[in-house]
């Protein structure tokens, strides 16, 4: 127990990330199920308007910040150091800090469901309710007097710190801890996409930090950053939010694209087609992702010139994305494709992401988007890219790397059930939403009139959502079953080309008994140019020093939610406690002897 709390081992932290994020995914999913149950019929009254608003806000926020990002992070943690032949990440304790901040931030946000009575309100009353992009000025104290928005903005502020810390850590890890011979153009595609993602993180998060800080000042100290009566404009929030928000969606998709780029070659037994192009297009997507944010604001009235410019830049992103897709198909082409569950999910990713991408292109055309924005058509788009894309990709990664992470193979039979249920379920749940939106149903409404003529489609969608839930249950059964009865994995159940497969599953604490020297991009494969490398010996030739654990990252992390309690409860002294804890953690951490 203690060893898990103080761990600085990237593999353990990876597992902690996985199970925590998966729990949040279930919570976000349950929120979605309640949403779907409410909307199964017109004039539904399962939940009140106020509860519904909290549900979709927390659903979006949870899925984005507490489920998908940290699920990706669990692979960054577990896999990246293994893929580059490192003993750990560059800053193991900072890594632990990131995890604890994430956990505490997530708990802080979700605590809002239950702590209503402390704020003289009921349970299920004070959770955030301004939508996941929390548009000002609805979020100002004047229009949202309760603590709901406070929970949201403080929680996001905490989570941002976690992501930023991880961002610096992984950039340095990938740039600086590669095994000898592993030049940048030999780095596996997943690690490459991780690197691009982290650059997006460290540049995008400061912007939302500032946006949230303004909101915080407005709510707690009476400033007027988003108050039009004072001469300001609430549109500033939208710019700052989407300056962050659009890079954020690529933060969510790029890791999944990286996973797919690993899974396809392994199961087609063919190198990734156009590796260099795939890597560069990933970089390009990340880069271009910075120039398109106003496509979320076509209805704001930015003027025809701005609309045209942002429309064009947005459409351009289809080019590098398409390039990736074509290269993936070309990877399969001429291969010897083994239909494992991981491959199913990777192919599912491609098939579904195309739909989401193409609806994205219809959004990118402002006059068309004016009929689509803020309707279920957008909800369809986001779930095709986020669920059809990211979640599918992450499941591909889970089935692919689970044996590495636990030493046991997930059941393929259950895996196929999981995949097909999820595939059918998601299309049933999200495809009708295109039509629902075009037929005039706005998003974020807790009820709709039967006159709209979308009741049947909504029912269909709800049925699909419950099918997805069923598929997730199958997955849960699969991991529980695998714990005891799963087939042993050995070092390399799939015949992978990259370094993580050269060591035992799960790997020893020190990862590599001898740090491998890398001579090419596919070290463990035989190609026309080279023979496979020799895997490191099972036991290290000399004892390897492994750093012990540390309590201080957790202590420092604890300072943050305490600090956040101060504004939430309007109590100054708590702020001093928070700062004291934070500083204590940092000082103890900085002066603790810790050698790697």
């Amino acid at each position: 127990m203690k060893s898990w709390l103080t761990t600085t081992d990237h593999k353990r932290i990876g597992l902690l990330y996985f199970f925590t994020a998966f729990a949040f995914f279930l919570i976000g999913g349950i929120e979605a199920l309640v949403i779907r149950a409410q909307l199964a019929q017109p004039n539904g009254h399962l939940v009140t308007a106020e509860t519904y608003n909290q549900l979709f806000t927390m659903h979006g926020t949870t899925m984005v910040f507490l489920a998908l990002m940290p699920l990706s992070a669990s692979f960054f943690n577990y896999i990246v150091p293994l893929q580059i032949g490192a003993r750990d990440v560059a800053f193991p304790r900072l890594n632990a800090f990131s995890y604890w901040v994430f956990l505490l931030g997530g708990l802080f946000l979700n605590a809002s469901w239950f702590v209503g009575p402390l704020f003289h309100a009921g349970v299920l009353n004070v959770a955030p309710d301004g939508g996941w992009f929390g548009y000002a000025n609805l979020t100002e104290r004047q229009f949202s007097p309760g603590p709901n928005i406070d929970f949201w903005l403080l929680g996001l502020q905490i989570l941002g710190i976690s992501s930023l810390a991880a961002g610096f850590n992984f950039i340095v890890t990938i740039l600086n801890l590669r095994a000898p011979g592993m030049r940048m153009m030999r780095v596996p595609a997943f690690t490459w996409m991780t690197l691009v993602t982290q650059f997006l993180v460290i540049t995008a998060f400061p912007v939302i930090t500032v946006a949230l800080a303004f909101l915080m000042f407005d709510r707690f100290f009476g400033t007027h950053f988003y108050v039009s009566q004072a001469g300001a404009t609430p549109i500033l929030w939208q710019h700052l939010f989407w300056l962050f928000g659009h890079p954020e969606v690529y933060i969510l998709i790029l890791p999944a694209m990286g996973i797919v780029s690993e899974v396809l070659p392994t199961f087609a037994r063919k190198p990734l087609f156009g590796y260099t192009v795939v890597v560069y297009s990933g970089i390009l997507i990340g880069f271009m992702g910075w120039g398109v944010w106003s496509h979320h604001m076509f209805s704001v009235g930015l003027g025809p010139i701005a609309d045209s410019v942002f429309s064009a830049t947005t459409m351009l992103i289809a080019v590098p994305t398409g390039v990736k897709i074509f290269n993936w198909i070309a990877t399969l082409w001429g291969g010897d494709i083994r239909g494992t569950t991981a491959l199913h999910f990777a192919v599912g990713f491609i098939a579904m992401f195309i739909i989401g991408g193409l609806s994205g292109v219809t959004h990118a055309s402002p006059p068309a988007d004016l009929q689509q924005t803020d309707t279920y058509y957008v909800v369809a788009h986001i779930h095709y890219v986020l669920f059809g894309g990211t979640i599918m990709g992450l499941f591909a990664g889970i089935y692919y790397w689970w044996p590495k992470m636990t030493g046991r193979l997930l059941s393929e039979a259950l895996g196929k059930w999981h995949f097909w249920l999820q595939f059918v379920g998601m299309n049933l749940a999200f495809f009708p939403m295109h039509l629902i939106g075009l037929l005039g149903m706005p998003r974020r409404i807790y009820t709709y009139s039967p006159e709209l003529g979308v009741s049947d489609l909504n029912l269909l969608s709800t049925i699909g959502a419950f099918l997805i839930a069923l598929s997730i249950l199958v997955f849960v059964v699969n991991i529980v079953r695998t714990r005891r009865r799963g087939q042993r994995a050995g070092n390399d159940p799939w015949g992978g080309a990259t370094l993580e497969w050269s060591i035992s599953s799960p790997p020893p604490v020190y990862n590599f008994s001898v740090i491998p020297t890398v001579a090419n991009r596919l070290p463990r494969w035989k190609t026309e140019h080279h023979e496979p490398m020799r895997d490191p010996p099972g036991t290290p030739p000399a004892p390897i020093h492994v750093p012990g654990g540390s309590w201080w990252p957790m202590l420092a992390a604890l300072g943050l939610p305490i600090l956040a309690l101060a504004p939430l409860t309007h109590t100054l002294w708590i702020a001093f406690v928070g700062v004291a804890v934070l500083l204590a953690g940092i000082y103890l951490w900085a002066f603790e002897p810790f050698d790697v």
Partner: protein
Amino acid sequence: MTTHGTHTSLGLDSRKMAFWAFIGSECLLFTSLISTYLVYKGRSVVGPYPHEILNIPFTSVSTFDLLMSSLMMVLALAAVQRGDMKWGKIWLFCTALLGLVFLGGQVIEFTEFVHKGLTLQTNLFGCTFFVLTGTHGAHVTVGVLWLLTLWVRALQGKLTSANAMTVEITGLYWHFVDVVWIVIFTVVYLIQ
């Protein structure tokens, strides 16, 4: 935290690299703040307005002070790298002291503004000005704490030329805070 200090793929110090990435990230933080200041410039519906209140001579002195602290900082680093801990200590202390002087100046400035009727809540100028310069001030505060920590460690004899990298990184932070001020001084104070 000397992680893999000896063997890195780029032959660069990991902490220093992380710090440069951090500074890159901070660029976007300050850009967001400065952009907001600029966007809202001249949009306050009530006074006081910048030209009525900003004290250029006073702030010029603060700017000079911060520039000099940067000089002290590089001198401190050079001394530590030479192994000259005597001067290392002196320069470190001077850097921190000048940082404190800057903060003192900011306290005086803020108090004066409040007396003249400009608070956080008064108008958009107040909001954007105090939050921007306040964020910078918070960075200076962290820097001063950090410098003083190093100075105390040096007094205890625990900071030696072996820790030159620590001092160098502190310096990176300190100079960055200085260049941010260079921009703020121009954009907020001189371009009214």
